[in-house]
């Protein structure tokens, strides 16, 4: 019996038909729904690019580890006795069992409980049980947990790349790198800690749907906006003043290249600096915080950092977002299933009350029971269902093409409702997907 081949099965995907999926101002929905394309994304994007693995504050002491995936690859971010943070593949070199089953913890060594092999915190193979069963050619020094070849960090954010060679992390982040400061320097001591809990969520939709979109809030979050009419400082209402999502707002969309995009709230929030400072003055330690920020960064920068509340609203392609008071990791599971974790950021050098206020802001909008995240997830699921129709398969992302411009720093800028981020990300997606190994 002859198998009828899916025209888009793995070996039928060519540069030509990938290129036909991403056009000027529109994308074919198969880029979001097709299993073979998804498999190629894992290989060519997640198993090659710089992928965010975790923050150094998640492994503060030697022996601390955090288990996370890079694409389909389970890895461990672990701090060694030498204080170095490594990223190791969480797979026993003997028969392939995942070695560490708990998500995080502290240990002196790793032991695989299939046949008892043990590994050092560096990944080096420490002991093989019943060593005599292996001949003289068996070299323990070649049998350690595989270390992910490239690991680099930027302001405590640890990235790793399974590909042995490529551009440096700094080159990859480009102009987006400076936006990490908007989060980290919301602390007067420049310290953040990802130790205040994590929302773990899942939606039935493609991973690329959770992007940077300034067009949706007044519609997807209409129920929240209705609530702000009753109390403007409720929840994250205190961060947003004077409808930042109107086409007339000073808010912008900005694309830095390499898939990195942000909703640029800086000018719009700075305009309301006095309201932000006044809001903070009602929180215990808020007046001191404003003073400390001025001392640490000077008036101009302090006012910007305070206004922005540690929310650069930056998406670092493909799996990291710095949004609100959280660090978000996007993990693709299948073409139609995505997991998103949202880890609360605790600021160093501020009062407990300020951190609690920020926790409460996060709780109000984000997570599976928040006022915002579930409606986002709901809409992504509706998109995924709708995209199954391929009668006219095109997703329209042309908004603002006629009015976008290149800023002095080289980034592409549009109004807040423009689809500058979507176009940038899909163009970079195509670039990665059509790159030879």
């Amino acid at each position, binding site marked *: 019996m002859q198998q009828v081949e899916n025209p888009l099965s793995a070996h039928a995907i060519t540069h030509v038909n990938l290129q036909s999926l991403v056009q000027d101002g529109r994308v074919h929905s198969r880029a979001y729904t097709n299993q073979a394309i998804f498999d190629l994304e894992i290989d060519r994007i997640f198993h090659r690019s710089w992928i965010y693995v975790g923050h150094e504050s998640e492994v503060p002491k030697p022996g601390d580890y955090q288990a996370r995936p890079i694409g389909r690859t389970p890895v461990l971010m672990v701090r060694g006795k030498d204080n170095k943070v490594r990223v190791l593949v969480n797979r026993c070199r003997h028969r392939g069992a995942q070695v560490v089953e708990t998500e995080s913890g502290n240990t002196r060594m790793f032991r695989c409980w299939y046949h008892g092999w043990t590994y050092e915190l560096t990944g080096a193979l420490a002991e093989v049980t019943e060593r005599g069963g292996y001949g003289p050619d068996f070299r323990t020094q070649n049998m350690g947990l595989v270390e992910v070849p490239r690991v680099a960090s930027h302001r405590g954010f640890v990235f790793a790349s399974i590909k042995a060679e490529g551009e440096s992390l700094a080159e990859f982040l480009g102009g987006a790198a400076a936006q990490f400061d908007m989060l980290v320097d919301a602390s007067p001591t420049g310290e953040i800690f990802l130790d*205040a*809990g*994590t*929302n*773990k*969520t*899942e*939606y039935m939709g493609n991973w690329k749907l959770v992007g940077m979109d300034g067009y949706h809030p007044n519609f*997807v979050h*209409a*129920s*929240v906006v*209705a*609530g702000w009419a*009753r*109390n403007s400082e*409720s*929840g994250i209402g205190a961060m947003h003043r004077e409808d930042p999502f109107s086409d007339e707002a000073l808010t912008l969309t900005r694309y830095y290249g390499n898939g990195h995009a942000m909703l640029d709230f800086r000018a719009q929030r700075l305009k309301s600096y006095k309201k932000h400072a006044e809001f903070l003055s009602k929180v215990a330690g808020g007046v001191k915080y404003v003073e400390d920020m001025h001392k640490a960064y000077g008036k101009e920068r302090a006012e910007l950092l305070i206004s922005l509340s540690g929310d650069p609203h930056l998406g670092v392609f493909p799996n990291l977002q710095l949004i609100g008071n959280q660090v978000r990791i996007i993990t693709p599971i299948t073409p139609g299933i995505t*997991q*998103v*974790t949202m880890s*609360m950021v605790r600021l160093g050098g501020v009062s*407990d009350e300020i*951190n*609690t206020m920020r*926790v*409460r802001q*996060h*709780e*109000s909008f984000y*997570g*599976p*029971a928040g*006022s915002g995240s*579930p*409606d986002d*997830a*709901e*809409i992504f*699921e509706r998109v995924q269902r709708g995209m199954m129709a391929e009668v006219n398969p095109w997703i329209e992302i042309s908004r603002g093409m006629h009015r976008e411009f290149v800023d002095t720093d080289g980034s592409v800028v549009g109004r807040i409702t423009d689809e500058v981020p979507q176009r940038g990300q899909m163009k970079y997606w195509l670039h990665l997907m059509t790159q030879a190994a």
Partner: protein
Amino acid sequence: MDNQKLTQWSALREVELFLFREAELADQHLYKEWFALWTEELLYWVPCNSDEQAIGRKIALINDNRPELDERLFRLGTKFAHAQNPKSRLSRVIGNVVLQQWDADHGGCVTSRFNLTEVRAGRQLTFAGRQTHLLARQNGELRMREKHVYLANHDIPMPNLTFII
């Protein structure tokens, strides 16, 4: 049966009937009637990651005081709460009800477990967990002062949780 035991049993039965009524109002999305079961000061708390998370120090799934719960229910009552449009069809069973500490005149603390089936958007999901109610008697009626819900799945990737849990 002695009088003391009868009193304990009738107290337990009164609490059970209260929890059943609360569950029914939540299942039916009768927000106004459910909100009326609370005392003026209230805490509705659903932690994530761990049952022992410090309130306010670590993020919870739900951490509502009266104004926040009022806003949550207001929002669900608008036409724009997309994740509840259409609404989830819900059915929950309350069991293992134990009075941990009880005073007939003032109320006390009761623990129980629940098993909840949700049907929405072509999917059938199960939520389960333990709950603690701090109940107060006001004008003869039982009211909720605090409700803590410890979901079994609070540390794995979760779907939307936009109905009353």
